[in-house]
Protein backbone atom coordinates (compact mmCIF):
# COMPACT_ATOMS: atom_id res chain seq x y z
CA UNK A 1 0.00 0.00 0.00
CA UNK A 2 1.28 3.37 -0.91
CA UNK A 3 1.81 5.84 1.87
CA UNK A 4 -0.20 8.99 1.58
CA UNK A 5 1.27 12.36 0.99
CA UNK A 6 1.07 14.59 4.04
CA UNK A 7 -1.59 17.23 4.01
CA UNK A 8 -0.72 20.79 3.18
CA UNK A 9 -2.96 23.35 4.78
CA UNK A 10 -2.17 25.90 2.09
CA UNK A 11 -3.13 23.73 -0.85
CA UNK A 12 -6.69 22.62 -1.56
CA UNK A 13 -5.97 19.18 -2.93
CA UNK A 14 -3.33 16.50 -2.52
CA UNK A 15 -2.58 13.49 -4.70
CA UNK A 16 -3.45 10.12 -3.19
CA UNK A 17 -2.97 6.62 -4.58
CA UNK A 18 -5.96 4.62 -3.36
CA UNK A 19 -4.73 1.47 -1.69
CA UNK A 20 -2.11 1.02 -4.36
CA UNK A 21 -4.88 0.72 -6.90
CA UNK A 22 -2.70 2.31 -9.49
CA UNK A 23 -4.93 5.32 -9.85
CA UNK A 24 -3.61 8.63 -8.63
CA UNK A 25 -6.33 11.00 -7.48
CA UNK A 26 -6.42 14.43 -6.00
CA UNK A 27 -8.13 14.56 -2.64
CA UNK A 28 -9.56 17.55 -0.81
CA UNK A 29 -7.73 18.66 2.31
CA UNK A 30 -9.16 19.29 5.76
CA UNK A 31 -9.67 22.98 4.97
CA UNK A 32 -11.79 22.03 1.95
CA UNK A 33 -13.95 19.80 4.13
CA UNK A 34 -14.57 22.66 6.57
CA UNK A 35 -15.43 25.06 3.73
CA UNK A 36 -17.91 22.52 2.32
CA UNK A 37 -19.53 22.21 5.78
CA UNK A 38 -19.93 26.00 5.99
CA UNK A 39 -21.53 26.10 2.51
CA UNK A 40 -23.92 23.25 3.39
CA UNK A 41 -24.92 24.98 6.62
CA UNK A 42 -25.46 28.29 4.82
CA UNK A 43 -27.67 26.72 2.15
CA UNK A 44 -29.71 24.90 4.83
CA UNK A 45 -30.14 28.18 6.72
CA UNK A 46 -31.38 29.89 3.53
CA UNK A 47 -33.81 27.01 2.87
CA UNK A 48 -35.35 27.35 6.33
CA UNK A 49 -35.35 31.15 6.13
CA UNK A 50 -37.34 31.23 2.85
CA UNK A 51 -39.80 28.75 4.37
CA UNK A 52 -40.78 31.44 6.87
CA UNK A 53 -41.46 34.15 4.25
CA UNK A 54 -45.24 33.73 3.58
CA UNK A 55 -45.29 35.79 0.37
CA UNK A 56 -42.39 33.85 -1.07
CA UNK A 57 -43.85 30.46 -0.06
CA UNK A 58 -46.90 31.20 -2.26
CA UNK A 59 -44.85 32.43 -5.19
CA UNK A 60 -43.94 30.33 -8.23
CA UNK A 61 -40.24 30.56 -7.41
CA UNK A 62 -40.49 28.82 -4.02
CA UNK A 63 -40.50 25.15 -5.08
CA UNK A 64 -37.93 25.50 -7.89
CA UNK A 65 -35.59 27.43 -5.59
CA UNK A 66 -35.85 24.81 -2.82
CA UNK A 67 -35.28 22.00 -5.32
CA UNK A 68 -32.26 23.84 -6.73
CA UNK A 69 -30.72 24.42 -3.30
CA UNK A 70 -31.36 20.80 -2.34
CA UNK A 71 -29.72 19.62 -5.57
CA UNK A 72 -26.69 21.82 -4.90
CA UNK A 73 -26.31 20.37 -1.39
CA UNK A 74 -26.74 16.86 -2.76
CA UNK A 75 -24.08 17.45 -5.43
CA UNK A 76 -21.61 19.04 -3.00
CA UNK A 77 -21.80 16.10 -0.59
CA UNK A 78 -21.48 13.55 -3.38
CA UNK A 79 -18.62 15.33 -5.15
CA UNK A 80 -16.51 16.36 -2.15
CA UNK A 81 -17.46 14.21 0.86
CA UNK A 82 -18.03 11.03 -1.18
CA UNK A 83 -15.01 11.98 -3.35
CA UNK A 84 -16.88 11.22 -6.55
CA UNK A 85 -15.24 14.23 -8.19
CA UNK A 86 -11.85 12.63 -7.61
CA UNK A 87 -12.68 8.93 -7.89
CA UNK A 88 -12.61 6.43 -10.73
CA UNK A 89 -15.24 6.87 -13.48
CA UNK A 90 -16.63 3.39 -12.81
CA UNK A 91 -17.78 4.57 -9.38
CA UNK A 92 -19.37 7.62 -10.99
CA UNK A 93 -21.23 5.36 -13.42
CA UNK A 94 -22.37 3.03 -10.62
CA UNK A 95 -23.90 5.98 -8.79
CA UNK A 96 -25.18 8.29 -11.52
CA UNK A 97 -26.75 5.48 -13.58
CA UNK A 98 -29.19 4.33 -10.87
CA UNK A 99 -29.65 7.94 -9.72
CA UNK A 100 -30.85 8.92 -13.21
CA UNK A 101 -33.17 5.88 -13.30
CA UNK A 102 -34.50 6.86 -9.86
CA UNK A 103 -35.16 10.48 -10.87
CA UNK A 104 -36.84 9.47 -14.13
CA UNK A 105 -39.00 7.00 -12.17
CA UNK A 106 -40.09 9.67 -9.68
CA UNK A 107 -40.90 12.12 -12.48
CA UNK A 108 -42.79 9.48 -14.49
CA UNK A 109 -44.84 8.38 -11.47
CA UNK A 110 -45.71 11.98 -10.61
CA UNK A 111 -46.93 12.53 -14.16
CA UNK A 112 -48.80 9.21 -14.13
CA UNK A 113 -50.65 10.10 -10.93
CA UNK A 114 -51.40 13.64 -12.07
CA UNK A 115 -49.12 15.38 -9.59
CA UNK A 116 -47.31 17.39 -12.23
CA UNK A 117 -50.13 17.70 -14.76
CA UNK A 118 -51.58 20.85 -13.19
CA UNK A 119 -48.27 22.65 -13.54
CA UNK A 120 -47.64 21.80 -17.20
Amino acid at each position, binding site marked *: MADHAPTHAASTEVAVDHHGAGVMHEHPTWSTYWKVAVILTAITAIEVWVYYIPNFVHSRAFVPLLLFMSAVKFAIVVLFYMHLKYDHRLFRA*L*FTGPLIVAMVTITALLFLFGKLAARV
Partner: protein
Amino acid sequence: MTSVPIGAAPAIGDAHDPHATSTGLDNKKIAIWAFIGSECMLFASLISTYLIYKGRSKVGPFPHEVWTDPMTGQHMKAILNIPVTSASTFVLLMSSLAMVLALAAVQHKNVPKRTTSERILGSSQLWLLMTAALGMTFLGFQAYEFTSFVHEGLSIRTNLFGSSFFTLTGFHGAHVTAGVIWLLTLFAIDRKRGLGPRDEVNVDIAALYWHFVDVVWIAIFTLVYLIQ
Protein backbone atom coordinates in the same frame (compact mmCIF):
# COMPACT_ATOMS: atom_id res chain seq x y z
CA MET B 1 -8.32 15.81 -11.72
CA THR B 2 -5.20 13.74 -12.37
CA SER B 3 -5.88 10.17 -13.32
CA VAL B 4 -3.00 7.89 -14.13
CA PRO B 5 -4.04 4.77 -16.08
CA ILE B 6 -4.66 1.71 -13.98
CA GLY B 7 -1.67 -0.25 -15.17
CA ALA B 8 0.74 2.45 -13.95
CA ALA B 9 1.14 0.94 -10.50
CA PRO B 10 1.15 -2.82 -10.18
CA ALA B 11 -0.30 -3.32 -6.69
CA ILE B 12 -3.84 -4.57 -7.28
CA GLY B 13 -3.39 -5.43 -10.91
CA ASP B 14 -0.28 -7.49 -10.14
CA ALA B 15 -0.69 -11.17 -11.06
CA HIS B 16 1.12 -12.15 -7.84
CA ASP B 17 -1.20 -10.10 -5.66
CA PRO B 18 -3.79 -12.36 -4.00
CA HIS B 19 -6.23 -9.43 -3.99
CA ALA B 20 -5.78 -8.64 -7.69
CA THR B 21 -8.96 -7.64 -9.53
CA SER B 22 -9.68 -7.44 -13.23
CA THR B 23 -10.66 -3.77 -12.93
CA GLY B 24 -7.69 -2.79 -10.79
CA LEU B 25 -10.16 -1.35 -8.31
CA ASP B 26 -11.00 -2.63 -4.86
CA ASN B 27 -13.99 -4.98 -4.97
CA LYS B 28 -15.35 -3.62 -1.69
CA LYS B 29 -15.55 -0.11 -3.13
CA ILE B 30 -17.25 -1.34 -6.28
CA ALA B 31 -19.71 -3.27 -4.11
CA ILE B 32 -20.56 -0.29 -1.88
CA TRP B 33 -21.13 1.97 -4.90
CA ALA B 34 -23.39 -0.68 -6.49
CA PHE B 35 -25.23 -0.98 -3.18
CA ILE B 36 -25.62 2.80 -2.96
CA GLY B 37 -26.96 2.81 -6.52
CA SER B 38 -29.59 0.24 -5.56
CA GLU B 39 -30.44 2.25 -2.44
CA CYS B 40 -31.08 5.29 -4.67
CA MET B 41 -33.88 3.35 -6.33
CA LEU B 42 -35.28 2.11 -3.01
CA PHE B 43 -35.54 5.63 -1.65
CA ALA B 44 -36.88 6.91 -4.99
CA SER B 45 -39.77 4.47 -4.65
CA LEU B 46 -40.46 5.60 -1.07
CA ILE B 47 -40.21 9.30 -1.96
CA SER B 48 -42.47 8.93 -4.99
CA THR B 49 -45.03 7.06 -2.86
CA TYR B 50 -45.00 9.93 -0.36
CA LEU B 51 -45.36 12.55 -3.11
CA ILE B 52 -48.17 10.67 -4.85
CA TYR B 53 -50.16 10.35 -1.60
CA LYS B 54 -49.44 13.92 -0.56
CA GLY B 55 -52.64 15.94 -0.27
CA ARG B 56 -54.88 12.87 -0.66
CA SER B 57 -55.53 12.16 3.03
CA LYS B 58 -59.22 12.34 3.94
CA VAL B 59 -58.61 13.00 7.63
CA GLY B 60 -55.94 14.92 9.54
CA PRO B 61 -53.57 15.72 11.01
CA PHE B 62 -51.94 17.19 7.91
CA PRO B 63 -48.28 18.15 7.41
CA HIS B 64 -48.69 21.87 6.69
CA GLU B 65 -52.38 22.68 7.19
CA VAL B 66 -54.58 23.16 10.24
CA TRP B 67 -57.41 20.58 10.51
CA THR B 68 -60.59 20.45 12.57
CA ASP B 69 -61.94 17.01 13.42
CA PRO B 70 -65.65 17.12 12.39
CA MET B 71 -66.54 14.43 14.96
CA THR B 72 -64.98 16.05 18.01
CA GLY B 73 -64.50 19.65 16.86
CA GLN B 74 -60.87 19.37 17.95
CA HIS B 75 -58.44 21.71 16.16
CA MET B 76 -55.17 20.13 15.01
CA LYS B 77 -52.29 22.36 13.97
CA ALA B 78 -49.92 21.59 11.11
CA ILE B 79 -47.98 18.66 12.44
CA LEU B 80 -44.48 19.11 11.00
CA ASN B 81 -42.07 20.83 13.37
CA ILE B 82 -39.66 22.67 11.08
CA PRO B 83 -37.36 24.16 13.77
CA VAL B 84 -36.72 20.73 15.31
CA THR B 85 -36.17 19.10 11.92
CA SER B 86 -33.85 21.92 10.84
CA ALA B 87 -31.76 21.26 13.93
CA SER B 88 -31.63 17.53 13.20
CA THR B 89 -30.69 18.27 9.57
CA PHE B 90 -27.82 20.44 10.78
CA VAL B 91 -26.70 17.64 13.11
CA LEU B 92 -26.65 15.13 10.24
CA LEU B 93 -24.70 17.53 7.99
CA MET B 94 -22.12 18.01 10.75
CA SER B 95 -21.87 14.24 11.14
CA SER B 96 -20.81 14.07 7.49
CA LEU B 97 -18.05 16.57 8.24
CA ALA B 98 -16.93 14.47 11.21
CA MET B 99 -16.94 11.39 8.98
CA VAL B 100 -14.65 12.87 6.33
CA LEU B 101 -12.33 14.06 9.09
CA ALA B 102 -12.29 10.50 10.51
CA LEU B 103 -11.39 9.10 7.09
CA ALA B 104 -8.69 11.74 6.58
CA ALA B 105 -7.29 10.94 10.04
CA VAL B 106 -7.05 7.24 9.15
CA GLN B 107 -5.44 8.04 5.80
CA HIS B 108 -2.83 10.27 7.45
CA LYS B 109 -2.25 8.20 10.56
CA ASN B 110 1.44 7.80 9.78
CA VAL B 111 2.05 11.51 9.21
CA PRO B 112 3.76 13.10 12.25
CA LYS B 113 1.50 15.50 14.18
CA ARG B 114 3.36 18.49 15.60
CA THR B 115 0.71 20.94 16.77
CA THR B 116 -2.34 20.43 18.99
CA SER B 117 -4.72 21.13 16.10
CA GLU B 118 -2.93 18.53 13.96
CA ARG B 119 -3.26 16.00 16.78
CA ILE B 120 -7.00 16.76 17.13
CA LEU B 121 -7.59 16.58 13.38
CA GLY B 122 -5.52 13.39 13.22
CA SER B 123 -7.48 11.54 15.91
CA SER B 124 -9.60 8.99 14.07
CA GLN B 125 -11.14 7.77 17.34
CA LEU B 126 -12.37 11.27 18.16
CA TRP B 127 -14.00 11.80 14.76
CA LEU B 128 -15.49 8.30 14.54
CA LEU B 129 -17.02 8.72 17.99
CA MET B 130 -18.19 12.23 17.09
CA THR B 131 -19.88 10.92 13.92
CA ALA B 132 -21.63 8.14 15.83
CA ALA B 133 -22.70 10.58 18.56
CA LEU B 134 -24.14 13.00 16.00
CA GLY B 135 -25.93 10.09 14.32
CA MET B 136 -27.44 9.08 17.66
CA THR B 137 -28.47 12.70 18.26
CA PHE B 138 -30.27 12.67 14.91
CA LEU B 139 -32.03 9.45 15.93
CA GLY B 140 -32.99 11.12 19.22
CA PHE B 141 -34.60 13.99 17.27
CA GLN B 142 -36.45 11.45 15.14
CA ALA B 143 -37.67 9.51 18.18
CA TYR B 144 -38.90 12.80 19.69
CA GLU B 145 -40.66 13.70 16.44
CA PHE B 146 -42.34 10.30 16.06
CA THR B 147 -43.46 10.31 19.69
CA SER B 148 -44.91 13.81 19.51
CA PHE B 149 -46.74 12.92 16.26
CA VAL B 150 -48.35 9.90 17.89
CA HIS B 151 -49.37 12.04 20.88
CA GLU B 152 -50.91 14.56 18.48
CA GLY B 153 -52.95 11.85 16.80
CA LEU B 154 -50.84 10.86 13.79
CA SER B 155 -49.81 7.22 13.57
CA ILE B 156 -48.84 5.04 10.62
CA ARG B 157 -52.54 3.98 10.36
CA THR B 158 -54.19 7.39 10.69
CA ASN B 159 -54.15 8.50 7.05
CA LEU B 160 -52.16 8.30 3.80
CA PHE B 161 -49.80 11.03 4.99
CA GLY B 162 -49.03 9.09 8.19
CA SER B 163 -48.47 5.82 6.32
CA SER B 164 -46.13 7.25 3.71
CA PHE B 165 -44.37 9.63 6.12
CA PHE B 166 -43.56 7.03 8.78
CA THR B 167 -42.50 4.49 6.14
CA LEU B 168 -40.14 6.92 4.39
CA THR B 169 -38.57 8.51 7.47
CA GLY B 170 -38.63 5.18 9.34
CA PHE B 171 -36.62 3.51 6.56
CA HIS B 172 -34.16 6.39 6.67
CA GLY B 173 -33.91 6.14 10.46
CA ALA B 174 -33.20 2.41 10.15
CA HIS B 175 -30.35 3.23 7.76
CA VAL B 176 -28.96 5.78 10.23
CA THR B 177 -29.17 3.16 12.99
CA ALA B 178 -27.22 0.66 10.86
CA GLY B 179 -24.65 3.39 10.14
CA VAL B 180 -24.24 4.19 13.84
CA ILE B 181 -23.65 0.50 14.63
CA TRP B 182 -21.09 0.33 11.80
CA LEU B 183 -19.30 3.44 13.10
CA LEU B 184 -19.23 2.17 16.68
CA THR B 185 -17.74 -1.11 15.39
CA LEU B 186 -14.99 0.84 13.60
CA PHE B 187 -14.43 2.87 16.78
CA ALA B 188 -14.07 -0.33 18.82
CA ILE B 189 -11.54 -1.71 16.30
CA ASP B 190 -9.66 1.60 16.41
CA ARG B 191 -9.54 1.43 20.22
CA LYS B 192 -8.40 -2.20 20.17
CA ARG B 193 -5.65 -2.20 17.57
CA GLY B 194 -5.70 1.21 15.90
CA LEU B 195 -6.88 1.98 12.37
CA GLY B 196 -4.22 2.97 9.87
CA PRO B 197 -3.76 3.48 6.13
CA ARG B 198 -4.12 -0.29 5.57
CA ASP B 199 -7.72 0.02 6.87
CA GLU B 200 -8.50 2.98 4.64
CA VAL B 201 -10.85 1.12 2.33
CA ASN B 202 -12.88 -0.27 5.26
CA VAL B 203 -13.35 3.22 6.71
CA ASP B 204 -13.97 4.63 3.24
CA ILE B 205 -16.91 2.32 2.52
CA ALA B 206 -18.43 3.14 5.92
CA ALA B 207 -17.98 6.83 5.09
CA LEU B 208 -19.63 6.41 1.68
CA TYR B 209 -22.62 4.72 3.30
CA TRP B 210 -22.86 7.45 5.93
CA HIS B 211 -22.70 10.26 3.36
CA PHE B 212 -25.36 8.51 1.30
CA VAL B 213 -27.65 8.48 4.34
CA ASP B 214 -26.94 12.22 4.60
CA VAL B 215 -27.79 12.99 0.96
CA VAL B 216 -31.03 11.01 1.24
CA TRP B 217 -31.97 13.21 4.19
CA ILE B 218 -31.12 16.33 2.17
CA ALA B 219 -33.77 15.22 -0.35
CA ILE B 220 -36.30 14.22 2.33
CA PHE B 221 -35.89 17.49 4.23
CA THR B 222 -36.75 19.52 1.14
CA LEU B 223 -39.45 17.30 -0.37
CA VAL B 224 -41.26 16.29 2.82
CA TYR B 225 -40.68 19.13 5.27
CA LEU B 226 -40.16 22.36 3.33
CA ILE B 227 -42.26 22.06 0.17
CA GLN B 228 -45.86 22.68 1.14
